[in-house]
């Protein structure tokens, strides 16, 4: 596609439920990144994919968070047993192998845990 697409754009869930967030990167981009952005804050790194492997998962805050990627395509970020502190915007970005112009970001998924 023309850009990075994320769905849903907004998600309200009850505390304790599981959620899945989806990211469709730019076609041909080998690298994919997930970031979390709390209200009024900067971007917190979660996980990085190169192809369908994840060489850097160091930012995942707990074992309730996991992510997978199919080939060099779609990625899903799953949060199990959501907590109120998980409320944030989850941003996905992709980049080419040569990292030209850094990342291209999607518009994010705004997650609200009530």
């Amino acid at each position, binding site marked *: 596609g023309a850009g*990075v697409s994320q769905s849903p754009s907004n998600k309200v869930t009850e505390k304790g439920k599981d959620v899945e967030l989806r990211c469709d990167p730019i076609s041909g981009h080998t*690298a994919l*990144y997930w*970031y979390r952005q709390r209200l009024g*804050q*900067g*971007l917190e*790194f979660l996980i*990085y994919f*190169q192809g369908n492997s994840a*060489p*850097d998962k160091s930012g995942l805050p707990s074992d309730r968070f996991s992510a997978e990627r199919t080939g060099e395509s779609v990625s899903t970020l799953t949060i199990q047993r959501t907590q109120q502190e998980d409320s944030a915007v989850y*941003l996905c*970005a992709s*980049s080419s192998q040569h*990292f030209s*112009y*850094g*990342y*291209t*970001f*999607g*518009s*994010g998924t705004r997650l609200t845990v009530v």
Partner: protein
Amino acid sequence: GESVGLHLPTLSVQEGDNSIINCAYSNSASDYFIWYKQESGKGPQFIIDIRSNMDKRQGQRVTVLLNKTVKHLSLQIAATQPGDSAVYFCAEKRGNNRLAFGKGNQVVVIP
């Protein structure tokens, strides 16, 4: 943790004036830096980048300055317009092509 920070949380600027946003970074080995602009409800958008072998780069109405001696980065916006109102982030490339972002600086343009 990651340490790329901005000095001023909010910058109010009169329309038509120039804006300067500052950023300090921590990793002297970083070789690539990017400024992003984030408008409300959108993802960050690339503005301009600079490699560590340069100290200045100009784009359309924007200039990035890099001072490696003091690990300082700045973004200058000329003739600020209402559409420039946004949060601006500097980012520093770490290993695995991973970017470390600062907390962001809100720019408010006063018409």
